[in-house]
C-alpha cells in the first residue's frame, strides 16, 4: 500500500473510532499494519488465522470496542466459517484485493476470483476502494454500516491505493 494511502486508512480508523485491530500480516497492507502498531490509540493483535481474528474481533466488539481485521483477501476463505457463524457481530474487514485488475502477481487471480462471490454468499456489504481520495469516505461509511447492519462489513483496497 502507498504510505500516503496507509496514513489515510489509519487516520480514518481513528477518526471513526475503530480502536481494536486484528492483523494477519499481508504484503499490500504492510504499511497500514506498521502505522497502527506505532499509534498508541490502537490495540493491535496479530493473529495466526483469519477465522481466529474474526472471532477475536467479535469478542472485542462485545466488550464495547469497534474492531477491524486487516488481512489479504485470500484470508476471506479461511475466515468464512467464523464470518458465517458470527453473522451478527460487527467486524470491519480491511482487505487487499489481490487478483483485481492490474495485479502483476501470478498468484493474484486465483485469490481474487472468489473474493466478491464469497462476500455476496455471506451477505457481507462491501466496497472496492481504488483511489486515495475514496479512502476517508469509504471507511466512514463502512463504520456507519457496521453500526447499523450489525454484522461484518468489508473494504477491498486495490488500484491507486496500492501502487
Amino acid at each position: 500500500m502507498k504510505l500516503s494511502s496507509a496514513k489515510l486508512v489509519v487516520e480514518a480508523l481513528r477518526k471513526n473510532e475503530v480502536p481494536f485491530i486484528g492483523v494477519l500480516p499481508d504484503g499490500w497492507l504492510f504499511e497500514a499494519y506498521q502505522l497502527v502498531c506505532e499509534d498508541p490509540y490502537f490495540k493491535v493483535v496479530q493473529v495466526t488465522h483469519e477465522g481466529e481474528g474474526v472471532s477475536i474481533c467479535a469478542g472485542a466488539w462485545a466488550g464495547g470496542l469497534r474492531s477491524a481485521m486487516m488481512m489479504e483477501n485470500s484470508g476471506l476463505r479461511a475466515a468464512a466459517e467464523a464470518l458465517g457463524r458470527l453473522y451478527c457481530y460487527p467486524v470491519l474487514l480491511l482487505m487487499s484485493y489481490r487478483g483485481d485488475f492490474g495485479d502483476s502477481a501470478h498468484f493474484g487471480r486465483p485469490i481474487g476470483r472468489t473474493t466478491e462471490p464469497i462476500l455476496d454468499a455471506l451477505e457481507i456489504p462491501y466496497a472496492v476502494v481504488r483511489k486515495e481520495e475514496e479512502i476517508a469516505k469509504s471507511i466512514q461509511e463502512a463504520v456507519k454500516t457496521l453500526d447499523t447492519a450489525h454484522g461484518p462489513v468489508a473494504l477491498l483496497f486495490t488500484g491507486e491505493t496500492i501502487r
Partner: protein
Amino acid sequence: MKRIDCLKILAPMIQNELVVVTLGVTKHEWEMINPRDGNCYLSGMGGTTPFGFGLALALPHRKVVVLDSDGSFLFGLNHLATLAVHKPQNLSVFIFDNECYESVGGSPSQTARGVDLAAMARGAGIENAITVRELDEFRDAAQKGVKENGLRFTVVKIEPWIAEVPARYYHLLEERNRFARYVEQTENISVLRPSKIPRRDPSKWKPTK
C-alpha cells in the same frame, strides 16, 4: 467426573464475571444450572476461546471465564499461540475434555489418542496450564480461575455424559443482544450503538397530495 457436577461447583463462584460458553451440550447444561445475562452463548467450532480472548482484551478490568470443549478448541488450536503471546491477566479458560465429539454421536477426538492440551498450552508459553481429573481438583482450579488474576488454562477431564436439560430456544442474535445489554449496564458503555433518531418539526410539514 461429569461435566454437570463441575458446572454445579463453578456456578456459585460466578458473580459479575462474563462467561463465554461453547456450542453443544455444555451450553445447555450451563444455562440450566446458571441462567444469567452475563452468559454469552456462541455457535461454531473454534471461536469460543478467541471470542473470550477478544472480550478480555477489550475489558481488561473485568474477569472473563471461557467454557470450551476439546472438539471446539482443537478446531482452532492455533489460537494457543496468540493466547500465550498476549496472556490476558483477566482470562480463565476451562476446556471440558470428554475426549470425544459427544454432541454429535461420541466419535473419539484426538485427545483420546494421547494429545495433551495442557502440555501444548505450556509449550506455547502459558505457565498456569493444568489438567484436573477429580472434583476437588476442579474446585480448587475453579476458585483460582474465577477469583485470582493471571491467565489460567485448565483442561477438565470428564466422562461422556449428557444431563437431562429442559428444551430452550436459542437464537444467536437474541443471545448477543441480551449479553451486549448486560455488558452495557454493568460497564456503563455502549455496545449496540443505537442509531440517533432525527427529530422533525410537524409544523414545518407541507401537505402532500
